């Protein structure tokens, strides 16, 4: 077994990045746990219920999606279907082009990261400005988000203050209030100049066609209030059956994601501006994005589609805490990224990913919709090795496991190997698994006997 690239990336992370990620994720997890267990006798019952509701949706997407479309259309929205990332980008672009729009203000949406929308639009002469503070900082720095809900968890305030100074937003000042104030001053008139506003949606309710968007900064509300055209990019799995399900999901999402009782701004959008309403966008477009989701639906791991993108699994994950999101190959990082990426891109795209886990099970304990992430990681490991075997890759490792199985099904060989090993001492060297072990740790002294020797002498 070779040391994996992710391990090498992690080894090269600057100390201040490590500190920022570790502290940000740890505090998120600890506050979440306290809040859930202080407020609910048995939060696990809520997780079970939420998981069952989402699983029901996933199992019945074929009926929910047309139902949602019909509600949205009845509410006055236009519905678009995008099979791929490119189709989703094209859909946004064609809406903007038809309106002659040149400037777009964006609220935070992971789907737009997934389809790389901002790049696509900028190449076509459209400014797509991020208005979420974290995403704004990422955009200003030509960086990438490293966490589903805390995109700049890897940056500290000194780095942000320096970035703002360099970008002409004011002299160095790393006081968080001042950082926020400066972003606010910069962004405020951008809303007024914009031609359209783009958001995601945390949930879309089937019975009402209601879009639900949660933010802590109110920026998505500005995106809608200040522009005449609202475009919502939504993964096809974001559906909830009933409005009343929001009571459960908004409580769980806020606690699991940001350790709040409720996110500060919860918007419920039932359509574009109706006759007689004083304001709001005249046009509303909802783009449902597949981009690999139906492949996941067809797989054994469709429970992944329950995910509500809260980030709790990242915050609790000891591996994520040590390596941060940029060590992962795609926009989704941490445990959920480790199972989403192979599903969306194929298991051979980044075959080490499901192995970059100690299988400690912490993620499975916090997931608000009870996705069995550790089990899926194990299944993906098996899928990777089956693909390896088909493609005749990693044959040495395969041989190693076969030798292991042979020895472990021949007790006398196992016993003899132990005896020889104990008499010869630990092998040394800097290659292979032993080299990897010894790169960080010593080995214990070898005992004189095996246990079975002792047992026979009793």
């Amino acid at each position, binding site marked *: 077994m070779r040391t994996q690239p992710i391990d090498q990336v992690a080894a090269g992370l600057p100390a201040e990045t490590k500190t920022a990620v570790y502290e940000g994720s740890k505090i998120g997890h600890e506050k979440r746990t306290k809040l859930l267990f202080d407020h609910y006798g048995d939060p696990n019952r809520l997780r079970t219920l939420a998981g069952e509701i989402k699983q029901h949706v996933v199992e019945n997407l074929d009926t929910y999606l047309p139902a949602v479309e019909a509600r949205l259309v009845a509410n006055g929205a236009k519905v678009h279907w995008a099979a791929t990332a490119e189709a989703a980008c094209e859909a946004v672009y064609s809406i903007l082009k038809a309106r002659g729009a040149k400037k777009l203000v964006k609220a935070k949406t992971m789907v737009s990261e997934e389809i790389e929308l901002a790049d696509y639009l900028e190449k076509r002469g459209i400014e797509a400005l991020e208005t979420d503070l974290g995403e704004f900082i990422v955009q200003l720095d030509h960086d990438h988000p490293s966490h589903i809900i805390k995109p700049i968890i890897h940056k500290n305030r000194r780095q942000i203050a320096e970035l703002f100074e360099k970008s002409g937003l004011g002299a160095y000042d790393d006081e968080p209030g001042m950082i926020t104030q400066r972003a606010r001053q910069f962004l405020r008139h951008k809303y007024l100049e914009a031609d359209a506003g783009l958001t995601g949606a945390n949930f879309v309710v089937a019975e009402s066609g209601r879009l639900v968007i949660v933010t802590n900064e109110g920026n998505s509300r500005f995106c809608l209030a200040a522009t005449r055209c609202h475009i919502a990019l939504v993964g096809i799995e974001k559906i909830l059956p009933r409005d009343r399900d929001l009571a459960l999901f908004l409580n769980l999402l806020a606690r699991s994601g940001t350790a709040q009782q409720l996110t500060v701004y919860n918007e419920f959008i039932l359509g574009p501006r109706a006759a007689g309403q004083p304001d709001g966008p005249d046009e509303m477009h909802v783009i449902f994005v597949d981009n690999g989701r139906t492949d996941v639906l067809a797989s054994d791991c469709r429970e992944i589609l329950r995910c509500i993108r809260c980030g709790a699994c990242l915050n609790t994950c000891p591996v994520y805490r*040590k390596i941060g999101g940029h060590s992962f190959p795609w926009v989704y990082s941490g445990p959920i990224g480790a199972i989403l990426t192979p599903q969306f891109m194929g298991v051979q795209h980044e075959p080490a990913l499901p192995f970059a886990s*100690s299988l400690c099970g912490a993620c499975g304990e916090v997931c608000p919709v009870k996705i069995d992430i550790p089990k899926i990681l194990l299944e993906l490991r098996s899928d990777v*090795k089956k693909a390896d075997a088909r493609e005749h890759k990693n044959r040495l490792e395969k041989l190693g496991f076969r030798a*292991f*199985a042979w020895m*472990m*099904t021949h007790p006398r060989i196992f016993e003899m190997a132990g005896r020889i090993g104990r008499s010869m001492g630990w092998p040394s060297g800097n290659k292979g698994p032993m080299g990897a072990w010894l790169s*960080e740790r010593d080995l214990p002294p070898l005992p004189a006997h095996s246990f079975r020797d002792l047992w026979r002498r009793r």
Partner: protein
Amino acid sequence: MTLTSGRAPVTGKRVQLMATCLCDAFHDDVAAATVEVLEHLGCEVAFPEGQTCCGQPAFNGGDWDSSRRVVRHTVRTFSGDDPVVVPSGSCAAMLFHGAALEFEHEPDLGAVQGLGRRTWELGDYIVNGLGVRSWPGRLDAAIALHRSCHTRGTGSSEAVALLLASIDGVRLVEIGEAEQCCGFGGTFSVGFPHISAAMGDLKLDHVRAVRPDLLVSGDTGCLMHLSGLAAREGIKLRTMHFAQVLRDALRKRG
């Protein structure tokens, strides 16, 4: 409700010891202590000599064909109805969960699940299987208990904490971020040595902060990794499996 509840209650006192490959080959004293502890409780301990490994390394490595071969060998070796007791949360979890997962589409799933249902991690067996709530003897030590990840969702860690805390002279000290993994993770420790060591260093920092005399766990894998890291860094750290603690306490009975 724990993952290991709902299994057949323990009636007799005959048990089959699964020593684990690690203890059999490298930590003979842990398995020997397990026998002493079980015999103290009046158990009649059998050691099926055909035993080798539970198959977990190949299972976690993704080579389920190889792993299944080893699991089948284990199922044959531990035949009969007697409970199987194992001084490792990790090997126990392999037999409850892992083996069942990789045998999901195999004709002999039933036999594998059958072994899982009568397999007990040692601490869980003593407290929840036999109903023992306290431990005699004496050991003067401040003990930090590392809750190994494979005992999540089972009764093991609580059981071990209960037994240790009941020993005269033992003071349990809580370590920070106790729910965080030590970074061992089997093949993970050699596939991702840097991340594994970084996780281990965090655990060691928390352990050292509470200055225990002993770091105790129910999994020798975690202890081998942590003591190996400590030795490399020149940190003094005494580690013991809880079976050794229970055995040592027995030897100091008044």
